[in-house]
């Protein structure tokens, strides 16, 4: 698992909010054989600009190659890798687990201990939500597994650079001194 995590890098990109941008980005990944682990996109405070957070698997290609190919897309305005230590990362989980009268209170306890909440409940199941770091979400998923997970949807990571690094946001075009 940790080896897999080392292969995952976060790319954050500001793109023009135009028709077909998602297809251009997804198509580039497909035709160059780059792997996407997760992808989240929505407009920013500026309605003309959307932010993509893409978690990529660098097993398929060096990160700098992925970033510079994406940077060539005309609609990509700014792009860079987010160093996890310099980034705020969140993910949202919705998951429905089996819950009977004996397990119900234990599930509620676990969910609230990790900062999640119950969004729906029935006689035999509970649906919970948790917004948190990907690690916290991994933990909750792990803990709930023994009760029997019925369905799960994770949003994929969204991320922002921490404010003190925002000033050094670069387009990535000239940063080629480091190739590791």
């Amino acid at each position, binding site marked *: 698992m940790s080896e897999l995590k080392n292969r995952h890098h976060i790319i954050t990109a500001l*793109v*023009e909010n135009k*028709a*077909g941008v998602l*297809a*251009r980005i997804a*198509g*580039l990944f497909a*035709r160059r054989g780059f792997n996407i682990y997760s992808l989240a996109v929505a407009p920013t405070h500026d309605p003309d600009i959307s932010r993509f957070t893409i978690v990529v698997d660098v097993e398929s290609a*060096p990160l*700098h*190659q992925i970033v*510079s*190919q994406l*940077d*060539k*897309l*005309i*609609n*990509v*305005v700014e792009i860079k890798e987010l160093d996890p230590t310099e980034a705020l990362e969140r993910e949202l989980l919705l998951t429905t687990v089996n819950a009977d009268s004996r397990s119900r209170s234990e599930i509620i306890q676990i969910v609230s201990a990790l900062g999640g909440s119950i969004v729906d409940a029935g006689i035999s199941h509970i649906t919970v939500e948790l917004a948190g770091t990907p690690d916290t979400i991994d933990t909750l998923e792990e803990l709930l597994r023994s009760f029997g997970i019925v369905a799960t949807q994770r949003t994929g990571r969204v991320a922002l650079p921490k404010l003190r690094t925002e000033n050094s946001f670069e*387009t990535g*075009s*000239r940063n*080629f001194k480091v*190739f590791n």
Partner: protein
Amino acid sequence: MELTGAQALIKSLEHQGVEVIFGLPGGAILPVYDPLLESTIRHILVRHEQGAGHMAEGYANVTGRAGVAMVTSGPGATNIVTPLANAMMDSTPLVVVTGQVPTTSIGTDAFQECDITGITMGITKHNWLVKDANDISNTIAEAFYVATHGRPGPVLVDIPKDVSNDLIDYAEPDDVSLPGFKYISEPDPEAVRQACKLILEAKRPVFYVGGGVLKSRASEALKILVEQTGIPVVTTLMARGAFPDDNPLCLGMPGMHGNYTAVTAIQQSDLLIALGSRFDDRVTGKVSEFAKHAKVIHADIDAAEIGKVRVPDVALIGECRRSIEELTRGLTESASQLSKPNENLLPLDIGDWINQINSWKETYPLSYDKSESDTIKPQYVIESISNLQEEGTIVVSGVGQHQMWASQYWKFNNPYSWVNSGGLGTMGFAVPAAIGAKVGRPDKAVWAIDGDGCFQMTAQELITSSAENIPVKIAILNNAYLGMVRQWQQMFYEERYSEVYLSPDLPDYVKWAEAMGCVGFRVDTPEEVIPTIEKANEINDKSVVIDFRTDITEKVFPMVPAGKSNDEIIVGPFGKKS
């Protein structure tokens, strides 16, 4: 000024200085063909849309300006997909305008509807679907800007029929504003300093010159840099003519069918200075064995090329011409700082290296068997045509054996005189590309070296050449086979020839040429080669097709088998020491 979208489109193209459009009308583009009747732009009516695309490429390659093609929706648009992919691979600036079904019909599987922006997303630098006629002038300005700036390449503008018909208040385009389109012109000064240091320390340096040198019109700058340093030059398939073959420092073409000296000089170099080249697999062979001991300086305008195949020691990201000029300037500066009194660091003290290279040139020159007097060797045809040309004749080729022989045996002493399909390897490129080149440079003679297989793919464009009075000369090296495939089947598939025979007589090329309004000749013996070329040279009012019946068994050598190390180069039919 109130105009239709179609009128606005033509006006926008005129505004960009477009002189010529290669195209073919149809339903969805019909409104645009009407105002064309009043335009100053020349339209060349092709016989197949693929021809329009390759003509536009030929035009772009010899002029340095964007080639323009216009076709209708659906099959018109899909027929031009191959030229777009070809232009993308070879970084050729192309603006293709396609008609589209009305916006109200998009997505309904309407007659001649196809999602051409979707199809061409991966084979254009960018494409646009224009949904509002008011956007036409800005979109066309953006299209030309994107096609011709940074690393050049093709773009496509898709215009629905109702958008062409809409009435708008036409306004000239604003200044192009594309916040996401970025490229760096000037190389980083620190990187230039590092590069100069590597060059001054090198003992076995080679300039590995690619098509980018031609795209950035950097031939003159390169000549100065080579004179300054004394470093030998290899010119890739895309860069033939970027540095003159008759200069003793020119080693010719490297790669799978490169000559021994060019290939081996790269392999044994200690510093490879890649200028506008991209470490294509046809040049590198097995990448892990490619120039193993060399440090690499990589100059390219496309940052994504840096480290894509080979991680360089120094990257010069910028326009090739600027990088070359900055190297010249930086070298003068560094040399004067580093040299001791009475010592000259430039040109480099690499006499041993040059001697080694010269001995390879002597031992392993490009050669073919001239002992058989009754068969026409294809190499002899190319040498003869080349020798009988005025300086600056443009030569175009298709793809296959004849292309490699043309690159090997034509004497390239001028830039922008060689047009071929390198990256995509598009058979059938030569005839339309030659016509486009002649349109771009009517002052030059244009010869196409073509194969019989290639010729059959796009020959009908010679009708266009006759109808539009664009005389070109086509030399078919007719070996009755898909020759390159035959060569691979002979060498790597135990002579099991599968689906490669074409016949020398079917079609009758002379009759076919005459039917298309051209002059046709057939050449069966070596003695007729030169007189027939001379006859063809005299004909300037019609296109000429010469059917040269060449040796069927002739193969392209040297050859590095696919996926093998360049050290395993086979020099001739009898192995290395031929």
